[in-house]
């Protein structure tokens, strides 16, 4: 690849469904290889932003540049790990089928997978600790294992930018640890990662940058700068609790919608 400035640049974008605008006039830049936590209350537009970044949702206005070129001029350099509810788990595919799908962009639509593709799939499965489940139907795995299968797929995709939607919600400790290890591994390979999460402490401790959203940009920068009380109050309102020892909790037992 000859694209030198590995970076993601979002310029004044507005996105939404039909008439409804979910995200208004959002701008930010991410340097290559950064780990970015995307934080905000339920319905703040985190998933919507991700859908726009993969090109699933057309922009109402503004531009997205990847490596300085407009979104859509690259073949599959963005990978996406979907939320659990977005996948049809009853579909007849095995774990290795799912991971091999990550290679489709490189294989081409008419060719068979090469030995190298198979090796990459095998390595990705091993790295996520699910190589022994390769021939199991995806629907028969536990929730955490299913998520690791999708993480393995995004690894096999060899993306420049990886988007993960709520990978730490409702999964076991092993999967959470595997996800975090993957983030560190990808950083070494200069892959930019955007991860949406509710876990503010995780965002503060394991990420380089934090993007705080609530239908618009509230704050963007290092965790120390972003997690100032006034920013959090703006984003979360009353549902934020800051304990005396500095631990931050977001009370979202009952999402408004």
């Amino acid at each position: 690849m000859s694209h030198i400035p590995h970076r993601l640049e979002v310029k004044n974008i507005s996105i939404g469904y039909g008439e409804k605008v979910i995200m208004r006039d959002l701008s930010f830049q991410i340097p290559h290889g950064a780990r970015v936590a995307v934080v905000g209350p339920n319905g703040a537009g985190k998933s919507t932003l991700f859908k726009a970044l993969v090109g699933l949702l057309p922009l109402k206005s503004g531009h997205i540049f990847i490596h300085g070129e407009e979104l859509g001029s690259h073949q599959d350099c963005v990978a996406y790990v979907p939320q659990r509810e977005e996948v049809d788990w009853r579909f007849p595919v095995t774990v290795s089928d799912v991971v091999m799908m990550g290679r489709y962009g490189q294989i081409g639509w008419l060719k068979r997978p090469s030995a190298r593709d198979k090796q990459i799939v095998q390595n990705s499965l091993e790295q996520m600790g699910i190589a022994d489940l390769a021939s199991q139907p995806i629907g028969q795995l536990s929730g955490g294992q299913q998520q690791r299968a999708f993480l393995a797929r995004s690894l096999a995709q060899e993306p420049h930018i990886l988007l993960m939607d709520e990978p730490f919600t409702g999964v076991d400790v092993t999967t959470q640890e595997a996800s975090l290890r993957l983030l560190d591994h990808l950083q070494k390979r200069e892959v930019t990662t955007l991860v949406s999460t509710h876990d503010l402490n995780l965002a503060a401790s394991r990420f380089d940058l934090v993007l705080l959203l609530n239908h618009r940009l509230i704050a963007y920068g290092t965790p120390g700068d972003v997690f100032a009380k006034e920013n959090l109050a703006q984003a979360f309102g009353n549902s934020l609790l800051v304990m005396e020892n500095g631990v931050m909790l977001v009370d979202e037992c009952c999402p408004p919608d």
Partner: protein
Amino acid sequence: MSLLLEPLAYQFMQRGLIASVIVGVLCAIMGTYVVLRGMAFLGDAMAHAILPGVAIAYILRGDLLVGAGVAAVVVALSIGFFSREGTVKEDTAIGILFAAALSLGVALISTMQTYAVDLSHILFGDVLGVNKTDLWLIAGLSLAILLTVALLFKPFLVISFDPVLAATLRLPAELLRNLMLVLLALTVVVSLQTVGVSLAAAMLVTPAATAYLLTRRLLPMMLVSALIGALSSIVGLYLSYYFNIVSGSAIVLTATLFFLLGFLWKRLKSI
């Protein structure tokens, strides 16, 4: 042995058998998408929606298959058009177009004097009336549809299993979805002659649903489904010959029997 060979002495039985096996295999393979994408309602709707095309062709004394084909493609693309970007939910769009097309078909038919024979063949199939031209048409169209499915196996897999991955891979999902609808429409048209529009939906769903119970990957599911479709057609046609029942019904009932066996097997296995 003679029991099996006797019907084949008649040329119309030979042609009927070939036609039903082709259609059985075709419906079974397209049916895997119908079952996996939850389009059973669409298959049924599509089958009925081609009625106005058939009626218009009949009035104009044109080829009924051509009329059916045009109507099917128009309905398929209209469903894609109305449900684009979620303006109207897909099943709602199907419900509206299905009812409208069926009503138009019935309205057109009610203006005719003598329609009984040919149209009952359209509704329930007339596998023994397949002539040489029909057979070539069925074989040619089926081959074209199956070839398209083979070439687009991976894109169809991705848009069915994970639309978001399809978007990140920059697949033209909208185009592929419409193409799949058109292929489905053509499948229904091809099955007109053997099982008729009323039973085509069953041939789309039943063998594929049976194969879903028995397999765990897409390609094996397609192959098992095709095998069940072919077997149902052969067994059904013999039953229709010896017990003198309508061939379309016999084929569908055989396929249903296979489904019940598959269901039973799955249940016993999970105990």
